[in-house]
């Protein structure tokens, strides 16, 4: 048991180091996110002019939602995990894991966890630096129960994020080129995960439909709990149940694709 832990701890530490080496990439992405936040600010403050509330929330609450979204993205978002997995399958690097007592899912998840630990901590730097500028527009609710329900939601969102990327990466067993599929699912995720606009602004029936889709639990759900867009603890508990369900389904699909894919795998190169 301990040796199992040590094995993936080593992977985690290597992942940590390689992410610290490529911190320039992080800086570039962080910079873009800042510009994206300016777009959000300009668009929504124009939309709020003359409307004290949109969908029952004031400007501060909506802007806080978008700021939290960016932070959470850096903490749990799976950016290029699908691409990396796809590359490892295509150029045969995956073969080495077939010969060693290493579980590929656990290996990849350790790298993902270390990468998000680095980016999740680094994103706090620009947030702290710009805090004096932002603080007049931020309104965070202070209920303690939000932390108790939001943290498990955040952790399950991370597993769902990674799980979906893992499944898409494994598609490379069947398709030569998965980039198109990945970008298509990214578009779907950003819309139904609430990155374009808070999902609660959708017409009521659509909002309810979205709650049964996995995308809702990828990003919107934890962010909405933390920022006060979801406020009914019992409804959140139901949400956590659905989220756990989706998490298990996605993990099962990943396992299924891995087994089926390996049967097709011809181990070219290596």
């Amino acid at each position: 048991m301990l040796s199992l832990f040590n094995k993936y701890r080593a992977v985690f530490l290597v992942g940590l180091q390689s992410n610290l080496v490529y911190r320039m990439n992080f800086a570039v992405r962080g910079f873009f996110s800042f510009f994206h936040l300016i777009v959000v600010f300009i668009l929504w403050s124009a939309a709020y002019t003359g409307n004290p509330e949109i969908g029952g929330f004031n400007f501060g609450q909506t802007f806080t939602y978008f700021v939290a979204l960016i932070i959470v993205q850096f903490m749990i978002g799976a950016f290029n995990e699908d691409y990396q997995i796809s590359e490892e399958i295509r150029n045969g690097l995956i073969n080495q894991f077939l010969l060693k007592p290493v579980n590929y899912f656990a290996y990849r998840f350790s790298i993902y966890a270390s990468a998000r630990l680095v980016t999740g901590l680094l994103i706090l730097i620009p947030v702290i630096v710009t805090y004096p500028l932002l603080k007049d527009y931020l309104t965070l609710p202070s209920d303690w129960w939000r932390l108790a329900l939001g943290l498990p939601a955040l952790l399950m969102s991370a597993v769902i994020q990674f799980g979906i990327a893992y499944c898409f990466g494994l598609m490379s067993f069947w398709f030569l080129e998965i980039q198109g599929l990945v970008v298509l699912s990214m578009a779907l995720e950003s819309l139904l995960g609430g990155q374009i606009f808070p999902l609660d602004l959708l017409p009521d029936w659509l909002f309810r439909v979205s709650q049964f889709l996995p995308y809702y639990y990828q990003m919107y759900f934890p962010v909405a709990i933390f920022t006060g867009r979801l406020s009914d603890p019992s409804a959140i508990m139901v949400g956590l149940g659905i989220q756990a369900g989706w998490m298990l389904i996605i993990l099962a699909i990943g396992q299924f694709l891995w087994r089926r894919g390996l049967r097709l795998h011809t181990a070219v190169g290596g």
Partner: protein
Amino acid sequence: MTFLHYLRIWLTAARYSIMRTLMFRGDFFVWALVELFWMTVNILMVSVIYEHTKSVAGWSKYEMMLLVGTSLLIQRFLMGFFWSSIFEMGRNIRSGNFDFYLAQPGNVMFMATTRKLDPDSLVNSLVALSVVIYSAHQLNLQPSFLAIGCYALLVVAGIVIHYSMLVLCISFAFWFTSAQGIEGSYFTLSEFSRLPREAFKGLANIVFVWALPMVIVSNAPAQTLLHGFQPSLLAWVVGIATGWFALTVFVFNRGLRRYSSASS
């Protein structure tokens, strides 16, 4: 003579791209779908915001649709004619494969940025155009031929500006070979082009409307369709298109001098 020479080169490249697309039809289909979906996401965002408000910075729903449609139209043309080539240019500069273009019979910037067409984006430009026409119809606009001609000219100027910004962003790869993802800076900047100019106030107005051309690129043609031909607006956009293009050529050539090929 030189024009014909370049046209011939371009047509050869275009023919090659179309043949390639016919070979990978599945790919074409998926990417066309991807772009169509992203455009729908933008349109949906406008619809959702206008579910809750009547006007954003003085623009009504269909005026905003017309603006977003115009912005998407310019972007589709940029993607269709240049994106793949420019995106690959960044990678080629890092990997050293850029040598290939130096040996070709023509201007390096032209050769490197016009090599591939993306028919999927060009197909989607029709969708973007339909969004513009549909919005104009909803607004009961009856633009004069002059306004339509001016709109077309402004769209072309917009493509020149977007092209310049994108090549400029990628040209930094000559200096910072380790920075990946600088291509993304273009997409971030292009987000601004879907906002109405009136929404920018104070410092944001100076930076994003006057210093960077992204906002005016889409606002100028949209305003021309909505309010008729404005000579000063046209002069302004053509002026900045020329200026940014000249700057890009300058930076690109400076970068080219630094290019030393790579060993790995």
